[in-house]
């Protein structure tokens, strides 16, 4: 992988935001654009740069194109989210049980 390209690709905050958004899973340009204050062509442009850097890959399905982070691309937030998303609700359920068993 070309390190200079990676640096350039992630130096732009919006592009990094697009990249980190994909950490949640595969998305279309439309999915990616939702919630961003950026035009669709701009998102596409960022995706092209990320693909060039080898951080993102695309998959075509009929007329739709989906993007995802390549295995080489880091997905730290996604890893963390996956580990803790179910952990906290489950622990809160346990807390409720513990509170019931505790003395006043």
């Amino acid at each position, binding site marked *: *992988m*070309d*390190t*200079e390209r*990676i*640096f350039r690709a*992630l130096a732009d*905050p*919006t592009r*990094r*935001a*697009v990249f*980190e*958004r994909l950490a949640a899973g595969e998305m279309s340009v439309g999915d990616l654009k939702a919630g*961003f*204050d950026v035009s669709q062509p701009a998102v596409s442009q960022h995706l092209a740069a990320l693909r060039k850097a080898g951080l993102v890959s695309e998959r075509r399905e009929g007329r739709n194109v989906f993007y995802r982070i390549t295995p*080489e691309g*880091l997905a*730290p*937030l996604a*890893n*963390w*989210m*996956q*580990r*803790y*998303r179910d*952990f*906290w*609700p489950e*622990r*809160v359920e*346990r*807390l*409720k*049980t*513990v*509170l019931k068993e*505790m003395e*006043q």
Partner: protein
Amino acid sequence: MNERSQQDEITVECTVPDAPEKVWRALTVPELLAAWLLPNDIRPEEGARFSLDGAPGEGGSVECEVLEIEPQRLIRYSWRDKGTARDGLETVVSFRVLPTADGGTRLRIVHQARVLVEKAVGQRLMACNSNVTPTMKMAA
């Protein structure tokens, strides 16, 4: 927008019929905290370092430091495990205890994670194992 892109959070809220003082004990007394969260040696004092045993998905310990504490109301501590260290993340958990009108408690748990981008990119570069020029090293 930028802020959102570089951090994420998990929020869990619940209302229980128990008094805030009781919920506070469940959050700050080691044996009680262990009964629902993880085995630990918590000390509810600002700056106190403690650990929780058994990080989800990774195992090992979670290293914590109390960043903020308002007795009976709020405790906030850093949360670092093998996974967050490896991924270049900084994470913090806060527990806010609010009394409800009928004598119960509203508990709000927020676990926030922030990407330490420089570190993440640095690791990516090492993983790439490419020729790093002196300029790139400085940038990293």
